[in-house]
């Protein structure tokens, strides 16, 4: 991954809007993003469950399995690794991840165009 300084960042919400261990959903250029704060670390992944195409992942239970931090889809319970978007039950499936940071009391996501650049 390239240096995070290369991205341009969009502020999506206040820091206080993302509680610990409970996901929230944000809209970033029409894409639904699930945001989690786990043991102080922020994660952002696509909110769309690839198995059902429904935007439910922000509503899954988070935890860890075999040392990896995961979210479980609330529909059919597959687990997605928050770090890289891979699915523990099906290696052919993965979800998109987004660079995320906390800056001046705001939660910021990297904007897609900047990633492409």
């Amino acid at each position: 991954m390239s240096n995070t300084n290369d991205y341009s960042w969009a502020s999506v919400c206040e820091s206080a809007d993302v509680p610990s261990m409970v996901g929230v959903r944000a809209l970033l250029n029409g894409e639904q993003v699930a945001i989690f704060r786990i043991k102080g670390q922020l994660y952002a992944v696509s909110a769309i469950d690839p198995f059902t195409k429904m935007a439910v992942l922000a509503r899954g239970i988070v935890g860890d399995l075999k040392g990896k931090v995961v979210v479980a889809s609330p529909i059919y319970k597959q687990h997605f690794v928050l770090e890289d978007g891979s699915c523990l039950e099906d290696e052919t499936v993965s979800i998109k991840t987004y660079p995320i940071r906390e800056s001046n009391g705001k939660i910021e996501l990297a904007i897609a165009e900047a990633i492409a650049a």
Partner: protein
Amino acid sequence: MSKQKIVVVGNGMVGHKFIDNMIQHEAADQYDVITFSEEPRLAYDRVQLSSYFAGATADDLMLTSEGYYQESGVSYVLNDKVVEIKSDENKVVTASGREEAYDKLVLATGSFPFVPPIPGKDQPHCLVYRTIEDLEDITASAKQSKVGVVVGGGLLGLEAANALQNLGLQVHVVEFAPRLMAVQLDEGGGDLLRKKISSLGVQIHTEKNTKEIIDGEECRYRMNFADGSFLETDMILFSAGIRPQDELARQFNIEIGERGGIVVNNFCETSVKDIYAVGECALWNGRIFGLVAPGYTMAKVAASHISGGSEEFTGADMSTKLKLLGVDVASIGDAQGRTPGCLSYVYQDGVADVYKRIIVSEDRTKLLGAVLVGDVEAYGTLQQMCVLGMDLPESPEALILPSVDGGGGAVMGVDALPDAASICSCHDVSKGQICCAVQDGAMTIGDIKSATKAGTGCGGCVALATQVMNSELTKLGVEVNTDLCEHFAHTRQELYHIVRVEKIKSFDDLIEKHGKGLGCDICKPAAASILASCWNDYVLKDEHAGLQDTNDHFMANMQKNGTYSVVPRVAGGEITPDKLIALGQVAKTYNLYTKITGGQRIDLFGAQQHELPLIWKELIDAGFETGHAYGKSLRTVKSCVGSTWCRYGVLDSVGMAIRLEDRYKGLRAPHKIKFGVSGCTRECAEAQSKDVGVIATEHGWSLYLCGNGGMKPRHADLFATGLDDETLITYIDRFLMFYVRTGDRLQRTSVWMDNLDGGLDYLKQVVIDDKLNVCAELESEMAQVVGTYQCEWKTTIEDPEKLKRFRTFVNSDEKDNTVVFVEERSQIRPATDEELVRFVESTESEMA
């Protein structure tokens, strides 16, 4: 080749078993089977007949159905008795004049109750106990009677006495012999049984020979005995043994035994070519077998012989184990020690009222028989040793001595049994079959029951089957891992105990002290449920919020498209017109799909997460509260309309349903729980398919426990009868809390009970007799849950901080565009995948 025509006379348990064997046969299509029955219905379970008095219906007792026979190509004629056999023409003739030709004829005419030839025996309230029609007569007679006498102190007679007692009568048993169950028990066993049954209020009169039945002075009848004494009673039930129903065979020159019974050989063939006899009408080697298991074996042998097999009937083990009026009794082999030269060992405990005796061969190497009263735990081992002729251990007395510090007790391990040993005689399951099921992955006795059917008949073999399973698991080196998940090396039950004892109030605290890592979607909801059961905290408290499945978190049920359904509580299914209108208005305002649920309430589908608080604000204003449809908790108490309106209702089922639902609403449990309350034994609320089923009878409530519908439907077991309101609630309090304490994660009450060592009986000991001395605790824990109930939705909409959780997006008021509905039958439904593709294409082309 044309099909062989098989005519079966009689459709009782054994006749049906024969037909079932033919249906299951690989060459079933080569046979045409037709059965005639003089009764108005197909085969039903006579062994469980007494459950009819506890609320079971004729339908519950059915062993088969007309539909099953039709599907299987079996013809049947009810209400038509076969009255003639033309064996020279291979034909039978029925009472209605119908002629039916046969290639093979099977007589399964069963037996009839023997009524001693006493003058006055044919009066209206002198009855017998064999068919469903008999039971209907008994019930009707009991309604007009206070005192009842059972003539006959055998197995069936005592069962009948139990039934009369349950019907509220003052019961006497009159027996000709000097002791009860003279066929199965010895003197010591019979004496103890008599003592125990007498203490339950049933009066026993032995060595009484009834001379005549005349009009009574205080009761309807008076029975005069040969010794000059008499007894007054309002009704008399004859249960003095059975006689083979051999009249048909007798008339048409088939060989009959001296004292009755159709003589058969090892293939169940009678003296006439092409004619077989099976079950209680058949006499093999001079013996009639009055139990169902030998009858089933005969049915199998006859079916095998007709279809070219070579199975033989070589006698049957008549050992029995049963519970009579709450007393455990078992009899094995030569229980009375009639074998010449035999020796016996007796253990008697006059304090706990236990009697055990084993009869061994002269050389002390083989077990010949046994009698057990009051403690029948050794039955399985002893019965196998006896039937298989296994060598006795060095000190045979150890088999019946109570175990002291783990020593002694029934020392014979199941490992000594050969694979062919029959473990479950009801379903003919061998030790080898149970071992195979374990090799195929069965890990619990519940698995064994569903894989092999073992233990699902009379239930007498469960302990033995469990031992076989455990031994096989050990042999396979399977260490049963009961850890909840990788974060906790504990079972749910252990965690529950930890939470209670250490007064742990949060998941963080629990995992820090007793687990590792962050937790997962297995342990978090389990911990949330335990914390809720113990402390009944608000589920969305900050420290609990992340533990909940989405359903519990949003207090609604997530559907396939990520939207939610909303179910307000409608206790007992009773709802006012105003509330119905309010529900309709809410559904209309938010364009929700509405459907009536199986639990007598109304489900509103298609709500998005941000709409949930708005919907609930309106529902709460209209007087609704949450229905907990989302929780592993009490769902509904289904009821029929009960005595308030129904012509047949006996008690107020709706009132009781509402009382129960209000009491237990919100209780978190290992699995969802459902109740049902029926106002009479017609059982319109289907209470026997629920975890807790309550059925009104004229003597109070009957309580059924541990049933369920769903994937593996299971009827609830009768737990207690004749309960008043308060006792009913006390028992349910204890039962629920004991389940909440000890159930495994996502374990239904049925599986939980099946896995309790001792099953239903053990549960009765805990809940009714307080064997574990925990009832006071269970009741106070329940009182705490009941006392701290809050409507979670009401608490939530009053808290602006909590409402933030329901926003769809933290940074936008837009709606979730993955949610698409289409209309069907004038309501919304989620779009299908194909419809979604079309929708996306059309919006894209609009944008272009």
